């Protein structure tokens, strides 16, 4: 019962957060110079009358509270609005874009978890040994390289060099799993590596720190004293406990990234939420911007709730506030 109450409360506050975010995004875009939205959509030499008409058509001349009310009204009916630029419904734009972003994020996640966890566990097991030191430097390098630099280098160094020599498996741009697993991986491998490098570093540090912390606990000393092999100690007992913060960080990260990986998508031409939101912002395409921002925020809020729920379920000591 307490759990249900907790869940309900978190969902309600989550909705509150979303409302604040939507309001913030809405207001932010009304600081734009008047008429620039219509201009950016109207083509090369529109007449004054044409501009006025586009403004009226899109409802840009109504008072801001009225526009916001229409927006909320549509939202409550599950309709995120219609793009100013193409008239497409934002729902359908999302339906196209989300699988692309998800492709990048999910694959990247598998990669960074695998690399981050394994390197982190090994580093902790042989703390301050040679492996640990090398891994530390590697990790820091991964953290320090901006995504756009890494992406461009991979494009030029891997994609171009391989294709010039006739190996055409690695491609840029997007291909979905429905086009064949091999094709999908060929297109997504470089974006995954780009995205995963920075995150693997974070997870490696997180795992290492958390595992070392756990290894210092009394019950681990007991296990060691009982004569269990180090390997058993680490994998049977320590890792499980150490993974809690990793899982929660994972939830947040996936939630955040599903809102769009702007730089990776732009460099590789994936055409997901991140790339499209950049275009929408420059055009002042408010419905698309609001739709994307809300969806992105919703993912983060949902991830937070799930993570807190997991904490509450797993660790009764955690106070449910």
């Amino acid at each position, binding site marked *: 019962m307490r759990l249900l109450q907790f869940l309900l409360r978190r969902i309600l*506050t989550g909705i509150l*957060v*979303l409302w*604040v*975010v939507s309001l*913030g*995004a809405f207001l*932010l875009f009304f*600081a734009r110079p008047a008429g620039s939205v219509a201009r950016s959509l109207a083509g090369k030499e529109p007449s004054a009358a044409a501009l006025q008409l586009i403004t009226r058509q899109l409802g840009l001349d109504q008072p801001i509270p009225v526009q916001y009310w229409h927006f909320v009204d549509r939202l409550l009916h599950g309709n995120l609005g219609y793009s100013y630029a193409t008239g497409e419904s934002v729902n359908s734009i999302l339906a196209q874009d989300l699988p692309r972003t998800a492709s990048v994020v999910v694959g990247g996640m598998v990669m960074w978890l695998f690399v981050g966890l394994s390197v982190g566990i090994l580093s902790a097991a042989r*703390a*301050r040994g040679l492996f640990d030191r090398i891994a*530390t*430097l590697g990790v*820091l*390098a991964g*953290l*320090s*390289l*901006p*995504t*756009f*630099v890494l992406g461009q*280098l991979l494009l*030029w160094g891997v994609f171009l060099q391989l294709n010039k020599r006739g190996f055409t498996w690695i491609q840029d741009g997007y291909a979905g799993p429905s086009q064949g697993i091999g094709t999908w991986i060929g297109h997504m491998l470089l974006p995954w590596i780009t995205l995963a490098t*920075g*995150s693997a570093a*974070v997870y490696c*540090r997180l795992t290492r*720190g*958390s595992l*070392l*912390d756990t290894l*210092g606990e009394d019950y681990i000393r007991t296990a060691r004293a009982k004569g269990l092999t180090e390997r058993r100690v680490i994998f049977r007992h320590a890792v499980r406990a150490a993974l809690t*913060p990793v899982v*929660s*960080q994972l939830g*947040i990260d996936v939630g*955040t*990234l599903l*809102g*769009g*990986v*702007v*730089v990776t998508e732009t460099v590789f031409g994936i055409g997901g939420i*991140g790339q499209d*939101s*950049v275009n929408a*912002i*420059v055009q*002042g395409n408010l419905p698309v*911007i609001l739709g*994307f*921002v809300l969806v*992105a*925020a919703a993912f*983060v*809020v949902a991830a*937070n709730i799930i*993570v807190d729920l997991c904490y509450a379920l797993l660790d009764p000591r955690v106070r449910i*506030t």
Partner: protein
Amino acid sequence: MSITNIEAQSQAVQAAPVVMVEGRSQWRLTWRRLLRDRMAVASGIVILVIAGLAIAAPAFAALTGHGQVQQFPNTGISITGAPTGPGHTFWLGADELGRDLFVRLLYGARISLFVGVVTTAIGTAAGVAVGLIAGYFGGWIDMALSRFVDAVLAFPYIMLGLALAVVFGPSLPMVIGVISFFAWAGIARVVRGQTISIKEREYIEAARSIGAGPWRIMFIEILPNLIGPVLVLATLSVPAAIIFEATLSFLGLGVQPPTASWGNILAGAQNYYSVAWWYLVFPAAALLITTTAFNLLGDGIRDALDPRTERLFASRRSRSRPAPEAGPPGAGGTARAET
């Protein structure tokens, strides 16, 4: 073993698992542990060298005869626009407008360090304040502030940066504003968590029972205990801010040319690195070295603050394990290069 070591050992043992600190001797111990950590010391030196170079940028400009924004098309680029490579005239090569890359990197260091330090300072001050207040008072204040922090952390940061750049025009103050806006939220979250766990300790109860007011408790009793973790977070926020600025410049939202920032130099390099490797390699190396140094230093400080260091690894040298991260996950202090 010296007397000091034994002293340190016994103090550490007495202190047992409590992360509490009191008095000034602990700081001295921390400092000594830090000095024994060779990586941290090396990083510190690297940072000082970079800062020194940044400060001396005008001197180098005078020395080479190339200003930050001065263009030398005749010596710096070929007639088809290909930049000149590293050599006698341009120590690290030239960029597409015939400007000296070395001098621009030095001025860029100024921007990067300035952005890193200022945003961290603002973010830390604001984050500590909000976190302390939320953690200490609890109740609806905590709820409101936490939800606000959540809202801030939920907002896609690049979108916000883009939106602000479109609305107000890109500039250095705007970059600082955007980065600080996200930096404080992460710190606030961690500080709140720490505050919550600290405020239950007995000595806080004791302070309250003798009639100390909430502000005194917060700032005189709790805050000093936060300095350690906050210092670590702050040191680790600097490289994150530097990368954030570089990313914003890549998207055209950061420091505007011709003012040099490592981010906008790298953005310019995009179209030239296949004919001018130096244009990509040197700025990338500068970023890499600087952020790595700050990260190592932050790690070192974190290790130095932890008194359990001596107990667990007494037989080895001073490089030790990182302190546990208290509080909810998703804390700041990790260099997130992408959202």
